[in-house]
C-alpha cells in the first residue's frame, strides 16, 4: 500500500515536471486582485485597472520618486498667471502614441472635454475637477488650464490629468463602450500585449517609446488575476510570480522567514499616503468637547494595536497629513496612552458618574455609544474590542458595530453615527484637509463629524489660496498642531505597503510611494510557470 502511494506521488511529480513551461526572465509576473473591468482611465470603476493603465497612459507631469514634487514629463515647462488661476504648459514636440501618431494639445483638450461630458460614465473623476473652468489651446503644443478659484491643488490637477488619444476615441463611437477600452493606445512605456478575462493581462515594452532615456529594461509585465489573498501569497511562495506589494503584516513578518523564501525574494516596506482613524461625531453630546476627544485618544492603546495587528509594521501618526509629504510636522508626537490623564480630562469636562451606576454621565445622558466600521475588517473588530475593554475600566460603555460598507457609507453621509473607525489609502502626497475639517463642509461637504473651529477654518482657507510652497508648509504645520490639539479624529496609524521582489531584478528601490519598475533591470535567471 505504502509503495503504491509513493509510486502514485512520483507519477504525479513526473506529470508536473513534463508540463513545466519556461518563463522569460525579462517579464515581471505579479498579481492583481481582480480583472480590470476595462482599461479606460475615465470610466474606470475598479481599483485594479489603474495599476495596469498607469504604464499605458501618461500625463503632462509626473511626481518625482524621491521629492514627490511634480516634474516635467510631456510638458517641459509651465507658467502660472499672477492671479494664480491659469496654468500654461509647453509640451514636448516628440511625444508619440504607440501607433506612431503625435501627441498634441488637441489630445489634452479632448481628454478634458471627454471627462466633462455628462454622457460619459466618469462622474467620480469629474467631481475632482469642479474648480476647473476651461482649457484653451494656444498652439499645437501649448495648452492653458483656467480655474474658477484659487486652489494650490490646481497645478497638480492639470499636470496629472491622464491624456487619452483624440484620434482613437474621437471617432464618433460611444465613449463608454469604446473598443479602445479593451485595446488601449497610449503614450506610455508599455503597451497591451494580451488579455484573457479572469486569468491575466499582459503588457509588453513599447519599443517605440518617445522617452528614450526612460525606456524600461524589463520586456513586459504579466498581471495574474488572483482574487484570494492567501492563494496569491502561496503562489508567490512557490515562485509562480516575482512581485507582490499587498502582503499582510503577518505574512511579511512571520510567514516569509524561510531560507528558501529569502534566497529567492527580497522584502521591502514603504508607506504610501493613507490613514486609519476614528472619527468622533461632534453632533453627539459626548464628543463636542475637545477634552473628551483627547481622552478618547489617550484611552486607545495605539502602540498595542500596531504591535498586535500589524506586527509593529504600521506607523503611529499625530495628524491627518501624509508623513512623508510637506504637510506633516514630524516634531509633533502622538498623544500618549494614558488612562490617568484621560480620567482627569473626562472629570474636568463634567463626565462624572453622578448616579453611581458605573457609567459616567452628564446632564442625565449616560456615556454610552457605538463604534461603527466596515464588516469583514479584522482590524475594525480588534480595535473595537481593545477600546471597549479599556473604556469599560473608566466607566464608558462602547459597543462595536460592524456594518456592510454601503450601509456604513449611508450612515456616515447622513451623520447618523457616534464614532467610526475608517481608513483610506492613496491620494496626493500634499494633503488638503478643507473638505474634511472646514466648517463650511458640514452641510454638503465631507466634514461628516461636524468639526468646527474658526482658527482651523482660517488656516485651511489660507493654505488653499497660497501658491508659494514654503509659506504653505508653514501653514500646514500650524494646522497640524491645531488638529493635534483639537483631535477631531483619533489618528491611529499610517498603514504600510509590504512587498517582496524576486532577487533577479536589479536597481530596485522602494520609494515612499512605491516602486518605479521602469528603472529595473534583470539577471537572466531561469524561472518556470507554476
Amino acid at each position: 500500500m505504502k509503495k503504491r502511494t509513493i509510486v502514485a506521488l512520483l507519477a504525479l511529480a513526473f506529470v508536473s515536471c513534463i508540463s513545466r513551461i519556461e518563463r522569460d526572465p525579462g517579464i515581471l509576473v505579479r498579481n492583481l486582485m481582480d480583472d480590470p473591468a476595462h482599461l479606460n482611465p475615465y470610466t474606470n470603476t475598479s481599483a485594479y485597472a489603474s495599476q495596469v493603465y498607469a504604464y499605458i497612459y501618461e500625463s503632462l507631469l509626473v511626481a518625482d520618486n524621491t521629492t514627490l514634487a511634480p516634474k516635467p514629463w510631456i510638458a517641459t515647462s509651465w507658467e502660472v498667471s499672477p492671479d494664480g488661476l491659469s496654468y500654461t504648459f509647453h509640451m514636448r514636440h516628440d511625444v508619440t502614441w504607440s501607433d506612431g501618431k503625435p501627441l498634441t494639445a488637441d489630445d489634452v483638450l479632448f481628454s478634458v472635454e471627454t471627462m466633462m461630458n455628462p454622457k460619459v460614465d466618469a462622474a467620480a473623476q469629474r467631481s475632482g475637477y469642479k474648480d476647473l473652468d476651461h482649457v484653451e489651446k494656444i498652439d499645437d503644443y501649448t495648452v492653458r488650464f483656467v480655474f474658477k478659484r484659487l486652489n494650490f491643488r490646481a497645478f497638480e490637477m492639470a499636470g496629472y490629468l491622464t491624456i487619452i488619444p483624440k484620434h482613437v476615441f474621437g471617432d464618433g463611437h460611444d465613449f463608454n463602450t469604446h473598443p479602445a477600452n479593451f485595446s488601449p493606445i497610449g503614450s506610455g512605456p508599455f503597451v497591451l500585449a494580451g488579455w484573457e478575462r479572469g486569468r491575466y493581462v499582459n503588457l509588453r515594452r513599447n519599443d517605440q517609446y518617445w522617452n528614450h532615456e526612460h525606456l524600461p529594461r524589463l520586456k513586459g509585465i504579466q498581471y495574474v488575476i488572483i482574487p484570494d489573498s492567501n492563494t496569491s501569497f502561496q503562489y508567490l511562495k512557490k515562485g509562480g510570480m516575482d512581485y507582490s506589494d499587498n502582503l499582510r503584516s503577518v505574512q511579511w513578518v512571520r510567514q516569509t522567514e524561510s531560507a528558501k523564501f529569502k534566497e529567492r525574494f527580497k522584502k521591502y516596506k514603504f508607506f504610501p499616503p493613507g490613514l486609519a482613524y476614528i472619527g468622533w461625531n461632534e453632533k453627539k453630546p459626548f464628543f463636542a468637547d475637545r477634552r473628551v476627544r483627547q481622552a478618547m485618544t489617550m484611552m486607545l492603546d495605539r502602540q498595542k494595536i500596531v504591535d498586535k495587528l500589524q506586527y509593529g509594521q504600521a506607523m503611529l501618526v499625530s495628524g491627518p497629513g501624509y508623513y512623508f509629504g510637506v504637510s506633516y510636522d514630524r516634531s509633533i508626537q502622538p498623544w500618549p496612552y494614558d488612562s490617568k490623564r484621560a480620567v482627569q480630562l473626562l472629570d474636568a469636562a463634567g463626565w462624572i458618574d453622578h448616579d453611581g451606576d458605573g457609567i459616567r454621565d452628564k446632564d442625565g445622558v449616560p456615556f454610552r455609544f457605538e463604534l461603527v466600521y466596515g464588516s469583514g475588517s479584522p482590524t475594525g473588530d480588534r480595535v473595537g474590542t481593545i477600546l471597549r475593554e479599556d473604556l469599560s475600566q473608566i466607566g464608558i460603555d462602547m459597543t462595536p458595530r460592524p456594518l456592510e460598507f454601503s450601509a456604513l457609507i449611508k450612515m456616515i453621509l447622513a451623520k447618523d453615527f457616534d464614532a467610526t473607525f475608517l481608513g483610506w489609502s492613496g491620494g496626493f502626497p500634499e494633503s488638503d484637509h478643507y473638505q474634511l475639517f472646514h466648517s463650511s463642509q458640514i452641510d454638503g461637504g465631507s466634514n461628516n463629524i461636524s468639526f468646527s473651529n474658526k482658527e482651523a477654518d482660517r488656516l485651511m482657507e489660507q493654505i488653499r489660496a497660497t501658491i508659494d510652497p514654503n509659506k504653505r508648509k508653514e501653514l500646514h504645520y500650524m494646522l497640524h498642531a491645531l488638529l493635534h490639539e483639537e483631535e477631531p479624529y483619533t489618528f491611529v496609524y499610517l498603514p504600510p505597503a509590504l512587498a517582496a521582489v524576486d532577487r533577479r531584478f536589479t536597481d530596485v528601490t522602494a520609494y515612499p510611494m512605491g516602486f518605479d519598475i521602469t528603472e529595473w533591470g534583470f539577471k537572466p535567471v531561469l524561472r518556470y510557470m507554476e
Partner: protein
Amino acid sequence: MLGYVAKRLLLMIPTFFGITVLTFFIIKLAPGDPALMRVQMQGMGKVDAQMAAQIVEETRKLYGLDQPLYVQYGKWMKRLVTLDFGESYADHRPVIEKIKEAFPITILLNVLTIIIIYVISIPVGIFTALKPQSWWDYGSALLLFILYSLPSFWVAALLMTYFAGGDYLNLFPIMGISSFGAESLPWYEYVSNVAWHLVLPIVCLTYGGFAFLARFARSNMLEVIHQDFMRTARAKGLSEWAVIMRHGFRNSLVPLVSLMGSLLPALLGGSVIIEQIFSIPGMGRLGFQSILQRDYPTIMALTAIEAVLTLLSILLSDLLYAVVDPRIRYGDD
C-alpha cells in the same frame, strides 16, 4: 402527453415572472447601488457629500436607476424578450459575452464533479445496502459524513498549503485551469496540464457530495432487496451477481431519476468559494462579483438563465418518471 407538456410549459411563464420579479426587487433592496459603489471606490473621507451626491445622481441617470422600479423592470423584460441581456454596469460589455466566457469552464468542472460523485457514491451505497449494519456500512457512513461536514474553504486552504504551496509538497498548481502559455503545448501535454490543474478543485468540489447520494442509493437498494421478485430471481437459480445487478440495481435506480432534475441547474451554477480560492473564472465568480458590484444586468441575466433551466429540469424529471416507471402516466385521465 403532449397536452400535458404544453400545459406545463405555459405554467412556467408566470413562475418565471415570479422568480425574476422577486430577484429584481430583492437586489434593489440591498443597500448600495452601482452609483454608491462609484463613491465607495473614491475612498471614504476623500469624497465630500456634495461630490458624492453628484456622482450618485449622474450615474443613476446614466443607468436609468432614477426611474420607478416597475419601469426599470419593464424595460429589462422588454429587452429579455429579444434575448438581449443588456450591458454590464461594471465594464459596459454585453452581459451575454461575460457569461459565454465563464460558461465552458464551469461546465467542465461540474460535469467532471458530477460524474465522479455518481461513479463513487452509487456503488458505495449499493454495497453498503448488501450488508446493512455491518462495520463496512457504519465505517463508510462515518467517513462520508465526516467528509460531508468539512467546510470546503478549509479543505481547499489545507490542500493548497500542503500539496501546492511553496513550503511543503509542491505537487499541484495552485490556481487557474491551465498554466500560462500552455496553449502553445502539444495537445496531449495541454490536456495533462489542464487535468493536473483540475485535481485540487475537483477534490474540493466532490468530497462533500458523496454522503447524500451514497445514503440515497443505499436506502433505495434496501427497499428493493426485500421485494418478492428478488426472491423469485434467486429461486430460478440466477447467480447472486445477476440478481443484484439486473434485478436489484436497475429497480433501485428509479428514485434516482428524480435527482436528475437538479442536475441541469447544478451544471451551470458554479461554486463561489472554490472558484474564488482557486482563481477559476467561472460562473460562480461571475455571479459573486456582479453581486458585490451591484451589477444588476449581470445578476438578472444569471437569475433568468438559472430560472429557465430549473423549471425545464423539473419538467424533464417528471417526464423521465413516466419513461422509467410504466405505472406513472400523465394526461391520460
